[in-house]
Structure formats: structure tokens, C-alpha cells
């Protein structure tokens, strides 16, 4: 664009406005300010470029972590947690293996397992607390 190349005839309809043409001057930037501005812009560009680079380096880590978290949450929700009962359940496969182990084990071994599985005081406290919420009501 070349300044003052084109005229604006529309303003001729407005005599006061036309008479003021050229009276309102804006200060031109000084050479010192221009240089300072130029350096500021180049510095900002360099800073943003660096920040973009470091973001690019971090991005794969953040994305991997996010996907891992989502996958872990999905796995837990699907296979190890029944939200209706509010407690962990066994998958069919795990249940079958457990039954096989029990049927093959001797009576002494079974007794040992059950004695180990006796609830501790702490477990009982938890069970009592849960029963208040009808989780173990059945």
C-alpha cells in the first residue's frame, strides 16, 4: 500500500471533516524504539520456540501416562470391581482355578487355608462398618 496514492472523494460531502484532513498527526516511532521493538519481537519468538520444543518433548510422556491411567482404570472397572456390590469379585477363570485347587488339596491343607483366612480384628471392624451400609447385608 502506498500512502496518499488514492483520494477519498466521499469525505468531500463532509466539509468539516475534509478541512481537518492531515491535521491529526500521529507520532512516528523513533529509530531507537523501532530497534527495541524489533529485538523484543525476536526474543519473544525465540522464547516461544523454546517453550514449544520442551512441550513437544514432554508431550509423548504425558500422552503415554494418560493412556496408561485410562487403561488401568478400565481394567479395574471391567475385571476387578463390581460397583453394584462394592467389593472385588473373581473372574470366571480365577474362580475355576480356585475350585480346582480346592478339590485337589488335602483336607489338612484346606483347614490351613481357612485358618489363615480367619478374619482379624481389623477385618471385623471393616466388615461391621460396611454392614451399616448394607454392603454385606446379604
Amino acid at each position, binding site marked *: 500500500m502506498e500512502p496518499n496514492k488514492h483520494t477519498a472523494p466521499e469525505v468531500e460531502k*463532509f466539509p468539516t471533516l475534509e478541512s*481537518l484532513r492531515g*491535521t491529526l498527526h500521529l507520532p512516528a516511532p523513533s529509530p531507537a524504539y523501532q530497534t527495541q521493538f524489533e529485538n523484543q519481537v525476536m526474543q519473544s519468538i525465540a522464547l516461544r520456540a523454546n517453550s514449544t520444543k520442551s512441550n513437544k518433548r514432554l508431550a509423548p510422556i504425558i500422552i503415554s501416562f494418560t493412556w496408561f491411567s485410562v487403561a488401568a482404570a478400565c481394567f479395574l472397572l471391567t475385571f476387578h470391581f463390581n460397583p453394584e456390590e462394592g467389593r472385588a469379585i473373581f473372574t470366571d477363570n480365577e474362580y475355576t482355578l480356585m475350585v480346582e485347587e480346592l478339590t485337589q488339596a488335602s483336607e489338612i491343607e484346606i483347614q490351613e487355608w481357612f485358618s489363615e483366612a480367619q478374619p482379624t480384628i481389623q477385618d471385623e471392624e471393616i466388615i461391621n462398618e460396611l454392614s451399616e451400609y448394607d454392603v454385606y447385608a446379604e
Partner: protein
Amino acid sequence: MNLRNWDEKEWLARFRQEDSRNAAFRELIQLFQGQLYAQVRRMSISHQDCDDILQETFIKAWTKLEYFREESRISTWLYRIALNETINLLNKNKKKLSWDANEFAAPLDSGFTTVEGDELVEKLKQAIELLPPKQKAIFCYRYFDEMPYAEIAQIMGVTEGALKASYHHAAQKIETILTKN
């Protein structure tokens, strides 16, 4: 280097080369900073805000020039970025912004020189300030820079007919304010 002998295609080729990119961009700043400053500043923007807008304009230009499709001139494209930034700021700070008369009466810290205006000139400044952002832009492009409607239309993405009507309304409003006692 000035705009008359500036070869846009040759400049773009230099910008697209890694080793000459910084020098080419500095050249772009030197070429357009003055014009853009005047255009933004006329729209009732303080020196500090104008400085911020221009910085953001050039930074955006740097990041987007890679994808510049050469459908318009670089100058038009730069004006469009600056205009969008200006309108955003004007809309955000409608109350805050004012064309401070003191900034014209005394030199600014940044080394700018100013010209004192009489009462009518002051009225003109105030009248321009009263225009809505887009109308203000159209008026400033046309009245101060005498920019062709076709170019304003490219910058603003509106038809020439709409621009002419908008300019006429703006000029009418300002003339009414100026002729009031």
C-alpha cells in the same frame, strides 16, 4: 529497503530457508512496523497496548507464515492479524481504553514526537473514539490512510458496498459531532 522495491516472493523464499529466516523476518518488522503502529494507534489505542498488539501480530505472523497460501499480499494479511487483535482488545476493554489527549500533548517515554491539536482536532479524536470498533477501523483506513475499498474489503472480509455504507455512516456521525457547538 522500502515497500516500493520490496519483492514479496523473493522475501518469502528467504523466510522459508532456515538460515535466512531471522534476517528476513527482521526486515519484515522494519518494513511494516511504522504503518501498523499508525493504523492500530489511530483506533484509540494507547501506546502500551499498541506495542502489545504489534508484538502479538508479528509473533502470530512468524508462526503462521509457514502456512501462508499467498492468496493475498503479506501486507493485507498482516493488517488483518493486527485488526483482529485490535478489535479483540477494544471489545475486551471498551471502558478502559481511551485516546488520551495527554499523550498527544506531551512526548511519550518511548521517544515519540507529538503534534498539538486545536479544539476541532480534539473533537475529531473524541468523535472517532465514539465509533464502534469495526466502523472505527473502516474510517481510519479510509480517512487517514486513504486505502482503496478493495484492499479494506480484503483485510476485513466484507463487501465493498457494505464498506462504503459503513464509511459514510461513520463520516456522518463524526461530521455531526464536529459541527455541534
